[in-house]
């Protein structure tokens, strides 16, 4: 009883998170243009999707930016957390404050400000500018997550490592990073999610040669979002899930025996 109830709660919340996605998948087979009711099974949206090369390209571009920006944001965000947690330097409090300020800046402000900046330094709008914008957007999420874990964390460990002759870089890589690993991973995942879903900032900082998925989806609102988007979402979701399950199977073959540790 004591062990089962908590897991039931986990399942319940997972159900809350996944039911809407199941609905998206089911309705990607719905034979109606505006899928609020069930009108029979069809595969036509998948057919339409595979003919829609620009849409697939946009999805691919989105993934590319999301992977790159999440990784870069994680590096920058961890460095920022390290600086704030560990070093004393001029303007540290201001830096800390700026990181909070980044979370509050309305997207529209960040988008317009970055566009003005990019135009003034005459950089071509596209992948690079999107990357910079998404890193900036996601970085504070990484930093704040790591700082929350570092709070009340035992400072002596790093000092001990330093005393034992580890360099600053090594103590960062071998002591600090492993200790904050869950926060770093969480930060990466949040950054990836933010990047995949951002509309307003991306709108301003991307150029005509680099279309991304969320922009395409939002600009369909006026004419009606077609269910081939549902089909695309369903495929992307299933692929991710398959990859995760495969990775899980391959990475921990002994899982069964270890569940209790």
């Amino acid at each position: 009883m004591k062990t089962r109830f908590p897991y039931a709660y986990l399942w319940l919340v997972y159900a809350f998170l996944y039911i809407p996605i199941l609905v998206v998948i089911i309705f990607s087979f719905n034979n109606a243009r505006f899928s609020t009711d069930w009108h029979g099974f069809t595969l036509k949206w998948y057919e339409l999707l595979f003919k829609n090369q620009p849409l697939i390209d946009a999805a691919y571009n989105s993934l590319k930016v999301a992977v790159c920006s999440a990784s870069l944001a994680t590096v920058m965000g961890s460095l920022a957390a390290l600086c704030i947690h560990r070093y004393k330097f001029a303007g540290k409090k201001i830096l800390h404050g700026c990181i909070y300020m980044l979370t509050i800046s309305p997207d529209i402000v960040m988008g317009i400000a970055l566009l003005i900046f990019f135009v003034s330094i005459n950089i071509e709008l596209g992948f690079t500018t999107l990357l910079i914008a998404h890193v900036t957007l996601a970085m504070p999420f990484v930093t704040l997550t790591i700082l929350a874990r570092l709070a009340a964390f035992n400072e002596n460990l790093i000092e001990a490592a330093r005393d034992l002759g580890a360099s600053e870089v090594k103590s960062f890589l071998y002591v600090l990073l492993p200790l904050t690993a869950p926060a770093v991973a969480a930060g990466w995942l949040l950054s990836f999610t933010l990047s995949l879903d951002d509309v307003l900032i991306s709108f301003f900082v991307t150029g005509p040669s680099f279309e991304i998925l969320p922009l395409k989806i939002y600009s369909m609102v006026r004419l009606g979002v077609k269910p081939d988007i549902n089909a695309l979402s369903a495929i992307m979701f299933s692929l991710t899930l398959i990859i995760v399950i495969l990775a899980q199977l391959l990475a921990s073959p002994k899982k069964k025996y270890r569940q209790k540790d």
Partner: protein
Amino acid sequence: MKKKVVLLALAFSFVFMGLPSTAGWLSANALAAEKNNGKVIVYNWSEYIPQEVLDEFTKETGVEVVYSTYETNDSMYAKIKLLRGKGYDLVCPSTYYLHLMIEEGLFKKFDHSKLSNIVNLDPQLMNPSYDPGNEYSIPYMWGSVGLLINTAYVKPENARSFKDLLRPEYKGKIILTDDMRDCYGMAMHAVGKSANSTDPDDIKAGYEFLKALHPSVVTFDVSAVKQAFISEEVIIGTSWNGDALVAQQEKPELEFVYPEDGALVWVDSFAMPVGAENVENAHKFVNFLLRPEIAKKCQEEYMYSTPNLKTLDLLSAEKRANRTLVPTGDELKNAEYLLNYGGKTLQIYKNYWEKARSGL
């Protein structure tokens, strides 16, 4: 163990990154042979021109079409303005933004001698007050904001004009657009004023109407209008005629009404930003879209009205008889274009709008 995970992650990311780019490369190669006459960068709503039409243009002319998207006129305007008109060869603003952007000098003139198919366009939609002689703008699609009703609950005779939204039986069943110009324009027509009025008293009258209507409204939305009607969350409200036609396919009891107090007409027209670099190709592209059979393809994909008279002849008799799609003078009585008004007037509208939207 950790290394294994990292390796796996790397392997998957390579597969992830590799696959679509190969696919893209293959399809790009197929078209590459034809793309040797430069390009044209089109900035428009997502999939507002069928892919088939774009491909056909590339095949015929060797000009690559780079198609980029925006989701509102407002954001398109901000971006073009911040870029000082550089980076895009064609944009497709609706009436009042076209007006504003022409006034602000953000567009170049078209060379009509390169647009031989312009003769196909409906003279009624040509030569508008905001662009005499169509020097800057070539109409692509047009439509209206009117009333959409569910005839299972609403008697058409009780929904003849925007004013009728105030009837008590619609309380809690109304949807309004959350676009300020469309919604406020509707209110101005309901109180018998012009949607472009700059008289503060008129604007106040429109506000009074919106304020009175607010308790009856269940949602302000543009992104899920069809869904709301189809699931009967709402039974009456503002809608575009194209949206109405699409929603009717799933719910035949829906009916679009051109209100007696006047629909709001918009025309999406192509225009060339001042910084456009591929001017020649932009002309070619616009001229291509003006061909009757090409305009027919565009019309069939999106249920809006075409300004191309020759295309009308190609449509089925059933379509031509559809008054929602092809309104006549009767339907468009009292109808009006939305025009730009100056910044000062915009502020007055905006202040009232923010109040009205919140029911104050």
